[in-house]
Structures are given as structure tokens and as C-alpha cells.
């Protein structure tokens, strides 16, 4: 893949809902994109309008900005709170789940940031003794449009003032320049999604190359930001052990482990619809073919033994560099936890508590908080807290 093809292009046409025409985000867009055309979009006639992938919609969002992670009762969820600030991503990773989630032609962000911040402030003030880990990277890349929207200038200082919340900006880009001068007060985690070099190179579209992501992580660490890394999705392919080991070794050659709050691992999983969508675009794509078994949440995952193998290897490689860093599994069951990491989340009070503890220990935020946000927000009950083999005790 050539260098030019990896460049994330700025939006060329921006369609703005009249009511957010003068919002700070739109003002930034006008300032930073002098060559883009700006249009007021009549949302009643939106259906008849043809959008292109490099268009951007700025809308007056009417829904809830704060959402819970779409957990299931079958797998342990991290209890991450989503700050819904935009939808879709133009990086173009082959495996991206957003392809199946959103049926819309172009990126969309929410211009009414004033209401967003009010809703967020009210919510945080209403639960002063609850620690919230809040992220913007669930339905889009947190920093994808930041060079033009300057959204980080709004949200990072906001979180710097909060006593019971931290912000996680999850990205695959190199767009951290704006962050470097912001007053973050140690309340923001900048997180990168990492993968094996060949996966990053071939399957992650216009994402920044792996080395660049790590260089940016180093820059952020030098400016006092805390970091997180997400090895998600992990793929099982010939040579995976060497490749993932290489990425981990490179990671720790760039950043100090004491600034890493946590590292998540998640093996590739997908809804059957996503496989169809990917194969339409790339009929010979091998990564969704293999030992994928149907799971209770309707997704397909690698057969348990393969996942355990992946997690065990990667976790042990991470621990070789950073024995104390918090490593967790994303959307996995207790058996896999126990067999890969050696413990069940319930042994540490559940996954959300484990991550809260990592935040308190590493970032020293929310030390006064006695509650976790998970019970407040998770819509679905979490899996059985005890391990499966209490059977001998029952009988």
C-alpha cells in the first residue's frame, strides 16, 4: 500500500443543521477548512440527497449523549461509558464492525456540544461518589476529525475539571497535535488500537502506520498523558506469535509502562452480517474463515482454545515488559479469563472494578469514589460471577 493512500482526507463538503451553524465545532471547521464548502442541510429532504464518503454532516443531536457499552449477559463487559459525539469512521479497516452497525453514507458529528457538556456535567454531578471511565471511541475514531473540529479542545479541559471521571480517546490516527498543549490534568487517557504489523499494513486502511502510532503515544506520554492500548481485534494466522510479539516489543520500546493504565485484548469476533459485508468487498478475505463458532450473543468467535492461545501468549509477552500493567479481556467469558490470564474477573470484584482500580492506582483520579459506574449503566446483567466449576461444591 503506497504512502499517499494512507492519508486521511479532510471533509470536502460539510452539511450543517441550521441550529448548530454557529456552534464551536462548526466555527472550527470553517476556520480549519477554508477550501471546504459549507451548506445548510434541510433535514426534511435529507433522504433525497446524495452524500459522498468525504462529506461530513454536523447535526443537532436529539438523543442521549451518554450511553452504556452494549454489553451482553454472556460475556464480561468493561463497564465503559460512551460519550456519543459522532458516528462512522472513514479510516476503512477491513474488519470494522461499524460497517454493519451504521447504514449511512458519510461521517456525522454532533454540533450541539453545549447540550452534550450540560448533560455530561449533570450526570457526573448527580453521582459524585461514582467513578466514570468515559470514552468517545465506540462509534467512531475519537481523533479522526480532531485536526478540523478541535473537539479535543472542548472535551479534554472539561474532563480535567472532573473529580470523578476520566476520558479515554481511542484512535488509530496520528492526530495528537492539538492534545499536546491542552490542560488535561492527568484525566485523559490517549489510547491506540494496535495489531500485528501485517494486519496493520494490509487491513487497517488509512490508519497511521504502527510505528507512527507508537511515536504519537510517546509524544503524548511526554506531555503527561496516560495511555492505553487495545489489541483488538486479534487475528489467528500463520506467524501471529512473532508478529504480535514484535508489536508488543516495539510498544514498550517507545512508552514507559507506568503511564499505561490498561491494555485490552479481544480476539476477532463478528456478527454474521459483517462477514457478508466484508466478503462482498473482498471475496477472498481469509480472516473470517476458520474456526469461528456461533456464540450466545449471536456473534462468532474463534473456538475457545484458539482464543486462549492468543490471549495467553500476548498477555505473557506484555507481562515480560510490564508485570504490573492491567491486562484485561474484552467481551470474554469466565472460563477463557481463567485459562488465559489465570484468574476470573470476579476474583478482583468484576471487570469494571478491576479497571476502576487501575485508573485510581495509575491516574490517582476518583480516589474518593466508592462506586463503579457499571451497575448504573449496564443494561444487561453480567455473567455468573463464580467460576463454572463450583459444580463439585454443588454436588
Amino acid at each position, binding site marked *: 500500500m503506497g504512502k499517499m493512500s494512507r492519508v486521511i482526507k479532510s471533509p470536502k463538503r460539510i452539511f450543517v443543521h441550521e441550529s448548530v451553524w454557529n456552534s464551536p465545532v462548526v466555527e472550527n471547521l470553517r476556520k480549519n477548512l477554508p477550501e471546504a464548502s459549507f451548506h445548510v442541510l434541510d433535514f426534511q429532504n435529507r433522504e433525497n440527497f446524495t452524500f459522498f464518503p468525504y462529506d461530513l454532516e454536523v447535526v443537532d443531536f436529539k438523543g442521549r449523549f451518554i450511553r452504556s457499552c452494549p454489553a451482553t449477559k454472556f460475556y464480561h463487559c468493561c463497564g465503559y461509558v460512551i460519550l456519543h459525539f459522532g458516528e462512522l469512521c472513514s479510516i476503512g479497516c477491513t474488519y470494522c464492525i461499524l460497517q454493519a452497525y451504521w447504514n449511512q453514507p458519510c461521517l456525522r458529528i454532533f454540533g450541539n456540544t453545549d447540550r452534550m457538556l450540560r448533560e455530561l456535567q449533570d450526570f457526573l454531578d448527580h453521582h459524585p461518589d461514582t467513578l466514570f471511565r468515559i470514552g468517545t471511541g465506540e462509534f467512531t475514531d475519537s481523533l479522526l476529525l480532531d485536526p478540523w473540529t478541535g473537539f479535543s479542545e472542548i472535551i479534554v479541559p472539561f474532563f480535567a475539571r472532573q473529580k470523578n471521571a476520566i476520558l479515554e480517546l481511542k484512535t488509530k490516527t496520528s492526530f495528537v497535535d492539538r492534545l499536546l498543549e491542552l490542560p488535561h490534568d492527568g484525566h485523559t487517557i490517549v489510547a491506540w488500537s494496535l495489531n500485528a504489523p501485517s494486519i496493520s499494513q494490509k487491513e487497517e486502511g488509512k490508519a497511521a502506520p504502527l510505528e507512527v502510532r507508537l511515536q504519537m503515544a510517546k509524544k503524548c506520554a511526554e506531555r503527561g498523558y496516560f495511555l492505553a492500548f487495545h489489541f483488538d481485534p486479534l487475528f489467528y494466522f500463520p506467524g501471529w506469535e512473532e508478529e504480535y510479539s514484535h508489536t508488543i516489543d516495539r510498544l514498550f520500546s517507545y512508552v514507559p509502562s507506568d503511564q499505561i493504565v490498561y491494555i485490552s485484548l479481544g480476539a476477532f469476533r463478528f456478527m454474521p452480517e459483517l462477514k457478508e459485508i466484508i466478503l462482498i468487498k473482498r471475496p477472498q478475505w481469509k480472516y473470517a*474463515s476458520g474456526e469461528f*463458532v*456461533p456464540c450466545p450473543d449471536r456473534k462468532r468467535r474463534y*473456538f475457545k*482454545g*484458539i482464543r486462549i492461545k492468543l490471549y495467553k501468549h500476548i498477555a505473557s509477552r506484555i507481562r515480560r515488559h510490564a508485570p504490573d500493567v492491567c491486562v484485561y479481556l474484552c467481551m470474554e467469558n469466565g472460563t477463557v479469563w481463567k*485459562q488465559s490470564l489465570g484468574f476470573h474477573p470476579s476474583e478482583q470484584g468484576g471487570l469494571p472494578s478491576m479497571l476502576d482500580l487501575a485508573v485510581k492506582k495509575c491516574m490517582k483520579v476518583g480516589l474518593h469514589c466508592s462506586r463503579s459506574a457499571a451497575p448504573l449503566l449496564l443494561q444487561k446483567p453480567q455473567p455468573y460471577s463464580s467460576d463454572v466449576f463450583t*459444580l463439585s461444591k454443588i*454436588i
Partner: protein
Amino acid sequence: MDALKKINPYKPTSLLDVEVNELKEDPFFDISRHRRIHVFEHLSRTEGILCPLWTYGSKTVTVVDGYNRLRWAREQGLGHVQCLVFPEDADKCYLLLQKVVASAGFRKFDIFEKANVVKNLSRCLTPDEIKRRIFPILGIPAKPRMLKTLLKIASMPLDEIVVTLEGGVSERTLMKLAWWNEESRACACKLFAKLRCSTNIQLEITEMIEDISRLEETSPADVIDHESIRQVIEDDLLTQRQKTEAVRRLLKQWLFPHLSEVEARFLEAKKQWKLPSGVRIEPPPFFEGDLWQITLSFSNAQELKDQLEKLAKSEIASQLEVFLGKDESSHKIT
């Protein structure tokens, strides 16, 4: 297509007896050629042609609806058939759509007819119009690349269509097979003709074959033609059900070697456990998840008591722990 936006713009002008020899055929309207045999059988069993054919034009009388009746009439040596005649200037797309709407009221179109309708109407309607207006009439779901799939099906040669129908290949399976090359499609039709399995099983088999061929960088035909599968489908001693199960098992072992190994190990271990009669133990499906199940069968309270006692005395829990301990340590996946 302005004509399609108006209400009934071309009404039939007359009902006439037309000489069979005068009737002209147009492939544009002939969407059910592959159903010829079934229609012929039906016509021969009944009174013959009861409904008039639809035609248009006066100098050249082109058949719109009733191609199989026309063929049957020719075969029977009939001189005249009754025809409902539309005006000369009637729009062809409008007439095809009318034919589809009229037929859809009393019978379901098969996938080839739907594909032919879509292909022919694509000449006068945009892809978006086809999806928005024609798909709902034909009961076609608006899935990604559905239009392209139907166009592929419409371009299949007649003899292949007949083989596909005779092989009992379901519509949903065919939509997947349409994207295979001709050789692989023929192999799949041959396979399903031997298995005669349900749509869901056809889809499962098709997906496993696709996955294996993708991983092995070979064609689906090569997977189907693998010696182990060929042996099964050519084994005259096996029933269709046994063949189906054997093919599924072989493909599963091929695509899921580690899962198959754990399953086999579990079955072997279970044999050694000597569970009390009426007690069944089942792992989570595909060994996914944390929940195992024990089922006790009993017919009265005393039996339940006995079963529970036997179970308490049995070593099932410790045996299972040993199995799971092995399971944990034996993920020798390379």
C-alpha cells in the same frame, strides 16, 4: 419509465381467437421457460388452456403471458388459442410488470422467474427503482448485492437451471452459489442432489465449503471433489440422511480441527465416566460459554431422590474437573 407511473395506461382492446402460427415469441416476456415440464403436466391433466394468453400488437402478435401454454398448444397441434390483446403501442416494461402482478396474485414465482423479471426490467428501470418498486412485488429482500446476484442467476444457462431445480437446491443456497464459478456450482448441485437436505443444512454446507476453499486457496469444486467427500456421496449403502451427516462431519473436521478434537475427547471421556442411567451431561454448544448442563430423567419423586443420591455418590464432578484441567492444558494449537 413514465408508463409505470400511470394507472392502467394500456387496457386490452379485444379478446380474439388467434392462429397459433401467427403468435410471435419474445424472450423479454418468456420468464418461465424452465417450468415447461410442470406446466405441460398440469395442462394435460386439466381441460387444457382455460385462461386466454396475453398478447400485444395487431400486425405482429407478440405473446406477453402464456408461453408454456403456447408451447403446449403447438405440441398438441391446436390451430387457435384465445388471446387478450393489448394495443400495439403498449409499453413492454409495463406489460411485463402487469403480467408479474397478475401472476403474483395466484402463485409464487421461483428464483429463476424473479431473476428473469429483474433482468428484463433492468432495461427500463434504474437499479434503485428495481430495488424500491420491483423487489417488494417479488418478495425479494433488499440485501446487499441482491440485484447483482439475481442478474447472475438470470444469466445461468437453461440446462444448468434445470439441474439446479432437479437437485433441490434452495433459493437461498442458489443465491450463494450464483457467485461460484460454473464448475463449482455444478459440483454443488450434484452434491445437493445426492443429499436432498434442508435449506439450513445446504447453507451450512455451502458456507463451510466456501470457508475451506478460501483458506486452502482452492475452488469450491476442489473441496467437494475431495476423496473423502466423494466416497461418501458415492456410497450406495448410505441413506441421504447418513450421507448428509457424514459430509457435514467431514467438512466440520476439516474446517474446525481443534473443536473436533475437543469434542472427540469429550465423547471419549464421557464413556469412561459411567454416568448413572437417566443422567446426561452436555457441554456448552461448541464449548463456548461457561454453562454446562446436567439432565436428570425421572418419573416420580422417589426416582428423583434416587437419581440425586446416585449423582452425589458418582465421581462426575471430579472427573469433569480432570477433563477441564486437561482441556486447559491441552490447547496445543499450532
